[in-house]
């Protein structure tokens, strides 16, 4: 059912929802950018509707709600272990369509790819989603080409009308009454979805692993600084690494935690004996790219990348992932013609 709410009414609903949920939304951190006098838009807890940034894309995705950046798995002493208690509250995540599609990728890896991940599951079960409508695409978005521009699996959608009132399409049966009571008007609401994006991406239909031999990857040996921003900002990257640590003032107690990892950053493919499978940045770029648009699909039947464009937004070296994907066609031809010689 659709509703129109004033800002105050919307805040009232959010306040009620926050009794059982942490509200997690893209939010402006004033002065939080890396450069002096710049803000950062990333996810954080919000209390009122106007804290939700609706007119810009967040640099990092929602994924830290489901997959904490660092997560303690257990604490240990010499004799005992203790798991941290699960979060008492559920989370209500405000996110755009591409990101809602990314949730399926996270679920795929953590719930359906072999054994269920216990820690992920206990957060995921208590997570609900509010869709932020997209009246227009941002410059780097290519969700349409990745078929991630439309969603209907949200609890409610939210966007503003031209008078800064909030338009809600509530699909969650248990929350309808809440909105109903606060609404100034009941009407049919369909969240905005983009139908075209300025950035276009085409993945070759007959892409195969042979493209790994193309010369294009070498260019990134020099251009990429292996900072990992493209991975850390990506809503579909799911890798983590483990850290066992002993508290500095009591070397006999400590904790095991898992921490996000990036296939672009040093250490990711290091193995015992000092080996490293992908020492060059170009090799890492090739691995990341083919994971996003080739081998994930081979395994799960649909593309991993949802076209949010964040990797392009955050790369300090102006490396465009969209452009890399668009070069694959030619790289494929190059590899095929080399093979024919």
């Amino acid at each position: 059912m659709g509703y129109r709410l004033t800002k105050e009414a919307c805040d009232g609903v959010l306040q009620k929802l926050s009794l059982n949920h942490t509200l997690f939304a893209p939010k402006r951190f004033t002065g939080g950018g890396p450069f002096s006098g710049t803000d950062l838009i990333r996810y954080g807890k919000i209390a009122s509707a106007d804290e939700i940034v609706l007119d810009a894309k967040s640099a990092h995705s929602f994924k830290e709600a489901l997959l904490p950046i660092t997560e303690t798995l257990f604490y240990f002493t010499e004799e005992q272990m203790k798991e941290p208690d699960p979060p008492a509250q559920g989370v209500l995540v405000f996110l755009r369509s591409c990101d809602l599609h990314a949730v399926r990728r996270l679920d795929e890896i953590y719930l359906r790819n072999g054994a269920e991940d216990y820690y992920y599951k206990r957060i995921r079960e208590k997570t609900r989603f509010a869709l932020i409508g997209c009246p227009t695409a941002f410059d780097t978005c290519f969700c349409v080409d990745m078929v991630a521009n439309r969603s209907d699996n949200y609890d409610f959608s939210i966007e503003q009308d031209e008078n800064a009132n909030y338009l809600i399409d509530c699909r969650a049966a248990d929350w309808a009454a809440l909105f109903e009571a606060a609404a100034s008007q009941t009407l049919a609401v369909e969240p905005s979805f983009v139908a075209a994006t300025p950035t276009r991406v085409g993945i070759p239909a007959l892409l195969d692993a042979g493209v790994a031999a193309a010369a294009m990857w070498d260019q990134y040996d020099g251009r990429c600084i292996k900072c990992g921003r493209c991975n850390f900002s990506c809503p579909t990257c799911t890798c983590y690494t483990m850290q066992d640590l002993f508290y500095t003032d009591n070397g006999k107690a400590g904790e095991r935690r898992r921490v996000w990892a990036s296939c672009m950053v040093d250490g990711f493919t290091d193995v015992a004996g000092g080996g490293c499978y992908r020492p060059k940045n170009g090799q890492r770029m090739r691995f990341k790219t083919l994971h996003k648009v080739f081998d994930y699909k081979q395994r799960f039947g649909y593309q991993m990348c949802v076209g949010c464009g964040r990797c392009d937004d955050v790369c300090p070296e102006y490396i465009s992932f969209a452009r890399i994907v668009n070069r694959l066609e030619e790289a494929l031809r190059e590899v095929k013609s080399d093979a024919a010689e």
Partner: protein
Amino acid sequence: MDINTKEVIKNAFRVTKARGLTASRIRVPGGHLKAEYLEIIHQIAREYGNGTVHLTARQGFEVPGIRFEDMPLVKELLQPVIAGMGINQTEPGQGYPAAGTRNITACIGNRVCPYACYDTTAFAQRLEKAVFPNNLHFKIALTGCPNDCTKVRMHDFGIIGMTLPQFEPERCVTCRACIHNCRKKSVGALSEINYRPARNEEKCIGCGECIVSCPMAAWTRSREKYYRLTLFGRTGRRNPRLGVDFIKWIDEDSIIKIILNTYDYVEKYIDLNAPGGKEHIGYIVDRTGFAEYQKWALRDVRLPAIAEVTQPVYWGGLKY
């Protein structure tokens, strides 16, 4: 021709090699100006000068080849440039009221540079408002960060931008970019303890390299802006030397107060027989001793709790 050279110099015109010709010196606090003023400077050079303009070592302009008789016309043309840059004047249309306190220089700062810790031009303009006009020979320079592109240690007051890195451990993914960059591009103030960077507060120079290099925004800038203040660098004939650290983690208001206090100190102690009434502050401090200077400088200054005052202050430098 009858020219009061003292008045002319005070009015920011030069007595030049060529008899009868002067040069007009134009202040640009913070070294950043609206492009429209270039058109006026162009006009002055074309109509009254010899068609050339010199970019001065202190980021101003000097228009040479002007006839002394034309000074009033030049001053009239200059008026919108002077007013537009917010320079304190005693009488509009009469040019610059002083020249002793030099143009305040600055690097490009946070309007452009990713390393900068503050808006260097805005602070330069604020200082200009506070100290100008003044006939005393003061040189003030600002730089956005410890890279010191302005080379502020060659000035009486060197102002170096700093930020106090704030750390959010939960956001750290142990990529080690901050540790690596602090070691390779800065002072090596970060070490790793239990997979996370630990900042050596004594060593850290507040350059912000860790913040710029962190992909997770685990490091962010402090809300407060901090500075390092260096004193009495000087070039020139006798005993050139680099400015030395006076206060680390000082704030903007305290810097302004210290500089204003220094004017009072110089008024009190300057050598009245100095040629042209001009004596480098450094020489005065050499005479009174630093302790006396510090007493004057810190009068009514309320430093932030984190500020570190160097004790004692020593100079080196070349002696001829």
